[in-house]
């Protein structure tokens, strides 16, 4: 060991290569994949600072500095999509993030194992249905005379095509998000719950704690590390609102509340061919995400000693 540590770099390099040459051979397809489909696009993101035309290509298109960013920050769309993105993210953070945690705790409190399995099996199910189908169902159910719409008229609402209403878009988005993901996302918390020492519950019961009290004092602290890791990961994706669903559900009459950064990038870049402008908006999104992730990780490390790195 000592020898390897002190040998010069070319010597170590050669020795390592001879020893592991098959491993490097195996790594070639993997590295090729990451270089071509992840790192080349990162390099390609440079077109945000260029005036890209397909004729000239990424390398030969002329530099224009921060012009695209200037245009974006100064445009009417900037505040609209930033606000929509932040608002929809915060809605999901406030409602969709805690939902699976609550579900896991409730499932965990069930004494009947069969009922437990049943609830789990049913609630995981929507996760496996494709977004296209989910969006189709949402569209159908919230339309005039649709299931949800009719149900709401019993409570005095008007029968309207709900997806045409800008003020309802976020609610529909977040509620359907919960419907689809609550069960699936609860798995990770259920796993964390299983590792809590059962003796703690017995001791608490001896001391006369009610169920709610033992949830508050034992269960929640027990899964707090898992919650904070999931929270940090969520922060790193704060601005990546699930745009596939938005693209499927929105339409020009709801752009005011539905259009987010990524759907804007998609529309400007791929439908209207504003390559460079769209790349600039995408880059802005990526940088903010990375900054949020790093910040959340730092804060979490300081207050709870849970962190990703």
């Amino acid at each position, binding site marked *: 060991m000592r020898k390897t540590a002190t040998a010069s770099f070319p010597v170590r390099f050669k020795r*390592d290569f001879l020893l592991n040459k098959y491993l490097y051979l195996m790594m070639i397809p993997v590295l090729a994949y990451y270089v071509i*489909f992840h790192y080349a*696009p990162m390099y390609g993101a440079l077109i945000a600072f260029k005036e890209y035309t397909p004729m000239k290509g990424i390398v030969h298109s002329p530099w224009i500095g921060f012009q695209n960013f200037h245009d974006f920050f100064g445009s009417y769309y900037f505040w609209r999509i930033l606000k929509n993105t932040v608002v929809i993210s915060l809605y999901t953070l406030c409602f969709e993030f805690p939902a699976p945690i609550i579900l896991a705790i409730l499932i965990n*409190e069930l004494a009947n194992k069969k009922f437990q399995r049943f609830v789990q099996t049913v609630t995981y199910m929507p996760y496996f249905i*494709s977004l296209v189908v989910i969006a189709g169902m949402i569209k159908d159910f919230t339309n005039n005379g649709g299931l949800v719409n009719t149900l709401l008229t019993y409570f005095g609402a008007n029968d309207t095509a709900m997806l045409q209403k800008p003020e309802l878009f976020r609610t529909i988005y977040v509620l359907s998000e919960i419907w689809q993901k609550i069960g699936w996302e609860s*798995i*990770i918390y259920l796993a964390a719950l299983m590792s809590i020492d059962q003796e703690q519950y017995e001791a608490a019961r001896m001391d006369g704690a009610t169920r709610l009290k033992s949830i508050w004092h034992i269960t929640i602290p027990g899964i707090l590390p898992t919650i904070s890791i999931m929270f940090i990961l969520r922060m790193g994706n704060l601005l990546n609102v699930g745009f596939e669903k938005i693209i499927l559900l929105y339409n020009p009459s709801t752009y005011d509340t539905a259009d987010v950064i990524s759907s804007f990038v998609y529309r400007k*870049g*791929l439908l209207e061919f504003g390559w460079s402008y769209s790349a600039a908006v995408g880059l802005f999104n990526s940088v903010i995400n990375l900054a949020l992730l790093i910040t959340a990780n730092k804060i979490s490390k300081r207050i709870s000693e849970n962190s990703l790195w």
Partner: protein
Amino acid sequence: MKISYSDRVFIAVNHVLLLLLVVVTLYPLVYVAFASISDGAQLITHKGFLYRPLGFSIEAYKNVFHNPSILKGYRNTLFILVFGVTTNLIVTALGAYVLSRKNVMWNRVFIFIVILTMFFSGGLVPLYLIVKGVGLIDSLWATILPFAVNTFNLIIMRTAFMAVPESLEESAKMDGANHFVILFRIIIPLSMPVIAVMILYYAVEKWNGWFWASIFLKDRDLYPLQLTLREILIANNTDMMSTGANAADQFQIGETIKYATIMVASVPILVLYPFVQKYFVKGVMIGAVKG
């Protein structure tokens, strides 16, 4: 031990809440199933809940299964599923194996290269330009190669490979086995539960994918099932489905066709998943381990 009053209230409320959740989750699916075998004319005038199919007609399913674009969609999805999942597994396993080895000089660099992509990406437009640049536009491989590895899955697999006892590899090495033999004869057979999870994760992703196909494929003959579905469900274009019928019939059949296509596209996975549920759950748990 006697259960206190407040605990009994809690238990009752808990059961009610969970039962309510079960109903809210299941009912939309039941509704779709009922609607798909209902009589189109009755369904159109109906509003609100369905407690049973309205009449009975399998006309919608006949239309769906005789429709050329649905059949093509199935064929294309099957291609993407088979070749896609195979590619995913081979490349991910190779990567996971190399990154799970100790004493490889460059592995820390490799891991950094891989992990960084989870937190930073070039974005949609640059990816599109690269895929176009390598000539994959209008090829089904455009939905396979750019997504050959899911980094999260790679980390799950690496964690599983690292758990295989080293002594087994040592003895294989004594017998002259190289890395390919160790990976395919020892590591993979011993990691079958994780491999099963990976197959399922990747297969669901391929079966349900539509977005990348929608931007990389212009040729309608290449559309996977989900893209055809999008036209029927989102763009509400069922005309092409009910050729031969007159306008009024078209409208009536169209309504049930929507539900029949939902069934056709979702039932295969919904039927399969309870059997593989325990593997899925296992995968999520392994994934929960810090990368």
